[in-house]
């Protein structure tokens, strides 16, 4: 645990306080300069944009996963089959699956080709290289992370509570929003963290599906460690990202304790 978690984090923190080497890497002296650079409005905008993207992905994932998890939790003996279908995409690398989406979405891709052949459109729809495509990639990639914790809480939900709700006059939708959803709060919180945190630092989906227009903080960090060769600044960005993630997890935990 210590080796795999604490040591790399400590190295990143240390790098963020050092100076930039001429050909990558880090050199002394120690400095806070890297963090001062972060105040640049451009980086703040990218941070804000990344936060927004991650939040949108989490909300969409949970919104889509909830009915799916509910369906799986109520499908009796087929539960295990459906759960393995949810996990199935993990057998292929995320990178390959993102490429597959590119083949579907690009101007000469499957969707545009079919729509054009059907005579529904003349010009190809701009499906790729925009925020929507990035969000689609994120939602697609992280959906299982919402389905699994939601399924786990729904599975444990006492069905008698829903009978009680109906008995007291609640129509199925009222029972869903007054009983099922509130009692799923722990699962919703877990799903939100599981999706929000990795989405905040994502660079693959934005790099491949977003083209040059959609830059997220993950792309900036990747760039600092590769093309820009500014490791200390990349490390400083990573530290800020970690802090945001930790703060959010702490807040979610506190809220969870209050509810209990």
């Amino acid at each position, binding site marked *: 645990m210590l080796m795999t978690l604490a040591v790399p984090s400590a190295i990143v923190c240390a790098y963020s306080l050092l100076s930039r080497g001429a050909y990558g890497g880090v050199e002394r002296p120690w400095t806070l300069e890297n963090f001062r650079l972060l105040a640049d409005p451009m980086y703040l905008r990218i941070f804000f944009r990344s936060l927004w993207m991650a939040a949108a992905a989490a909300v969409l994932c949970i919104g889509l996963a909830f009915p799916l998890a509910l369906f799986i939790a109520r499908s009796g003996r087929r539960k295990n089959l459906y759960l393995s279908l949810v996990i199935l995409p993990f057998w292929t690398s995320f990178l390959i699956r993102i490429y597959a989406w590119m083949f579907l979405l690009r101007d000469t891709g499957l969707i545009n080709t079919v729509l054009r052949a059907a005579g529904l459109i003349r010009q190809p729809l701009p499906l790729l290289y925009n925020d929507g495509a990035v969000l689609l990639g994120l939602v697609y990639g992280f959906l299982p992370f919402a389905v699994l914790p939601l399924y786990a809480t729904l599975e444990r939900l006492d069905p008698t509570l829903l*009978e*009680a709700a109906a008995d007291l006059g609640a129509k199925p939708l009222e029972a869903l929003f007054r009983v099922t959803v509130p*009692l799923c709060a722990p699962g919703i919180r877990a799903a939100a963290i599981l999706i929000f945190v990795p989405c905040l630092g994502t660079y693959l989906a934005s790099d491949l599906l977003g083209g040059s227009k959609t830059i997220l903080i993950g792309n900036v960090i990747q760039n600092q460690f590769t093309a820009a060769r500014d490791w200390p600044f990349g490390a400083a960005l990573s530290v800020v990202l970690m802090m945001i993630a930790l703060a959010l997890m702490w807040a979610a935990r506190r809220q969870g304790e209050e509810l209990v």
Partner: protein
Amino acid sequence: MPALLELKQISKRFAAHCAVADVSLSIERGQFFSLLGPSGCGKTTTLRIVAGFETPTSGEVWLNGTRIDPLPPYQRNVNTVFQSYALFPHLTVRENIEFGLRRKRVSGCAARVAKVLEQVRLTGKENRKPNELSGGERQRVALARALVLEPEVLLLDEPLSALDPQLRKQVRAELKDLQRRSGITFLLVTHDQEEALSLSDRMAVMNAGVVEQLGTPREIYQRPKTRFLASFLGAMNWIGGVGVRPECTRIARQPNGNGSRRGRVTRSVFLGSSMHVEARLESGDMVLAQVAASSDAYREGETVHVWWNSSDELRFPD
């Protein structure tokens, strides 16, 4: 007067298993009615059919002149007290009780909640969550949550089974009291014969999906129609194919005329208010006699004579 709740030839089949077979019941307004039977006899399924959680395979349910079996639970004017109470863990006592009133958009919510809280002696605990209450308090919240809606029939599914035995007797008395004062018709499901006998105005004893007998507790206890009922309700001695209740069985050291039978005491148990004497007759039958605590103590192995009045004999065609 027409019945308030009527079950007409209700059957419920689960795959190959028939849980309820051709059950017909009618319950009048203001009655305390019990469904008594061993586990798996179909009594809970029958209750769930009235509540609307199960659809009968055949038959009809009528409530106050309306056929309700095609209606979903939320459109039926009956409410249930669940065996596990099924209180909403994320809501306070008040919110649990208000749940039904809000769904039905009843006005004067606060006054009704206050009144029912007083009825079940929970005033002052409105803002607690279910996990901060004792078992007895939870049971009363479950009761209040259903009663506040003033249902035509209150359905109670083994409401006392989760309570410890001491509390059970007290709550049983309170339940009867609550029913009398509210005037609401109660339909109770239980496997506890003492509960059914002491609470019910009328009751039905079920076995293997059918109603074996319907009547007042006294009728069923004193004149059971089947061998099953005779054994299930109270204790019963079976001597030469004839049933005799232990409390009707007499025992003495001297023979009582020609009718008495000889046996040896196998066990004698003092129970405080009464005494149980168990003896093996010469015929080989075991017999239990319940006698006054003040009567003589019998030693094991002692020879005794046992008899009873022929009017206390219960006979069943085989």
